[in-house]
């Protein structure tokens, strides 16, 4: 059986290819939008994976440390470390800020500054996947940065008032928002979170000294002690916990909640917080875009196929007059719509694959999404061809005779 649609496409291939190219770019954008969402989810999972933690101990009744701010005293880790089922613990701080590359080519980079104890690889919170350099070994002024920051080994970066030398480079160490991470020693990070400028410190001291309750005669050293406590930060955002072999997360988490009066999240709960709460709005935003793009694609396919069909009304009338079945004519239009959709899909897939790495945030093009997109394209093309098929089937064969 001859393929009327195939012959028509071959006859007017330029029209089909260029229309398919345009549609393909639209489908490419749609695939990329899905990839942006998948990238966000993957970033969130990578953040959890890279933390190396089985449990996150955070301030009571908060969703910290990623979805809400959380403050936990920095000596809590000791009592947690002593509990049954806990293999290792580590304090950690997170602070998203502008990090400045100093020297020639100075520029600001949006990054998540992570404060970790320089314990070396394998400990919770430590950077993994080092691609160059080494881990943090000193307690001050060293940094390990993700390659996405664009920093190089030996670069000097400024975090607040302190400068750090980049001693290591990691890969795929990103926040849930996709910002690359910069790891610095915990003490420096704690200071950076609450460090005030000199003028503010002077004014703070003056205010404290003027407070008669803190500057009482006969109590020497009280004022100095109060001032000293105001300029230090004994808090971290969370305590990361690694479990000993043979213990389930919930079995260890429950005693910590009960005895330490803190909130503890397992990996599954933390993933739920990140995906269902932190990026939920962004996901809905992207879903809206996907729906709109699908509607626009369907409208374009419908318009093109309808226009192409109207251009063939006389031929369709002749075909009907000489005895062509309605289903043959409908199949021709449907096949053309599907052909157009498939050209667009191939172009879109190629385009998305090529431009995805150029996006500033991670774009993950999943095979499952590609298959779903193909199914959606087929469904959209079928629906879009309905209008044209209706128009074709309404053509009166008498139109071919005229009069």
């Amino acid at each position, binding site marked *: 059986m*001859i393929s009327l649609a195939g012959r028509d496409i071959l006859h007017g291939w330029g029209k089909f290819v260029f229309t398919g190219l345009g549609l393909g770019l639209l489908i490419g954008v749609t695939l990329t939008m899905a990839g942006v969402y998948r990238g966000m989810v993957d970033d969130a999972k990578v953040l959890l994976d890279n933390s190396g933690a089985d449990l996150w101990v955070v301030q009571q009744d908060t969703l910290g440390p990623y979805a809400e701010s959380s403050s936990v005293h920095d000596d809590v880790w000791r009592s947690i470390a002593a509990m049954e089922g806990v293999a290792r613990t580590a304090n950690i701080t997170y602070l998203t800020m502008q990090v400045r590359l100093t020297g020639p080519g100075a520029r600001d980079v949006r990054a998540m500054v992570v404060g970790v104890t320089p314990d070396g690889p394998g400990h919770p919170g430590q950077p993994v996947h080092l691609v160059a350099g080494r881990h943090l070994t000193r307690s001050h002024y060293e940094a390990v940065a993700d390659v996405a920051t664009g920093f190089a080994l030996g670069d000097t970066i400024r975090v607040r008032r302190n400068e750090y030398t980049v001693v290591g480079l990691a890969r795929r160490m990103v926040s849930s928002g996709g910002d690359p991470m910069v790891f610095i020693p915990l003490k420096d990070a704690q200071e950076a979170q609450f460090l005030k400028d000199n003028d503010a410190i002077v004014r703070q001291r003056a205010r404290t000294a003027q407070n008669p309750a803190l500057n009482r005669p006969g109590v020497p050293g009280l004022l100095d002690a109060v001032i000293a406590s105001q300029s230090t930060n004994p808090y971290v955002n969370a305590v990361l916990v690694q479990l000993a072999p043979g213990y389930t997360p919930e079995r260890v988490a429950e005693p910590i909640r009960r005895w330490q009066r803190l909130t503890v999240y397992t990996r599954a709960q933390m993933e739920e917080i990140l995906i269902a709460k932190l990026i939920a709005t962004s996901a809905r935003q992207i879903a809206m875009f996907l729906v709109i793009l699908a509607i626009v694609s369907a409208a374009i396919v419908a318009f093109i196929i309808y226009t192409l069909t109207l251009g063939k009304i006389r031929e369709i009338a002749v075909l009907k007059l000489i005895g062509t079945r309605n289903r043959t004519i409908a199949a021709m239009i449907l096949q053309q719509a599907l052909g157009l959709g498939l050209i667009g899909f191939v172009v879109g897939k190629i385009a998305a694959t090529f431009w995805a790495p150029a996006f500033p945030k991670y774009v993950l093009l999943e095979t499952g999404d590609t298959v779903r997109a193909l199914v959606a394209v087929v469904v959209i093309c079928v629906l879009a061809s309905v209008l044209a098929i209706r128009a074709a089937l309404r053509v009166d064969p008498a139109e071919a*005779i*005229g009069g």
Partner: protein
Amino acid sequence: MSISERPLAGARSGEDLRSQHTHVAQSASKRAVGIHIDGLRKRYGSGDTAVDALKHVDMTVAPGEVVGLIGPSGSGKSTLLKCLGAVIEPSAGRMTLGGETIYDEGWKIRDLRALRRDRIGFVFQAPYLIPFLDVLDNVALLPMLAGRPNAEARQRALELLEALDVAHRSRAMPSQLSGGEQQRVAIARALVSRPPVILADEPTAPLDSERALGVIRILNRMAREFDTAIIVVTHDEKIIPTFRRIYHIRDGRTHEEAGEGRSIE
């Protein structure tokens, strides 16, 4: 019997010709009448607004005969053609195509699409070839759509194109043909399923005298060779003298008269 089974003019052996004559004789007995119309009427609308496009049409065309149908605009030519083409249903009367009654106060054949495909060939004022199919597939399309194997349909189409002297353009696209070549391809398409009846609607209108007479010559030859009854609706003064019989239609009524039957061979 398919065309591929039945040799065409210009490529026959003596045995083939004997065989064909036998076939024609058998076929003629089957098709005692190519077209027979008796008291056909067509009314559009109803009540006060009703219009009788055809008031009383009688017509007989024998197999192998080409007759002319002429008349002024609005006389009912197109309506008659649509009734004959099973595109619109007459209001009354009787209509027989190829010896088979297809209308007698109601359609006798339910599948009008198949009727048009198998028993009626159409040639239009403009060739209306399918622009995205080459010449061969334009002609072969009908048997292909009827479920014939592609190779067989193309072979049958090629033989017809050879008979019409356009086989050398079989792989050309319609847009690459002259007007006369396009019309010959359209005739080949009308003949490919070997219908007992061909309806030609102003087939020579866009052609000059020489090409117009060429088309009529071909229609006459094909009518004889394929035992087909052909009605040519025309205004074309160049070709009217070539008909042996002419039906005049005026105010929805037909009147038969003898034509000049001028030789065009």
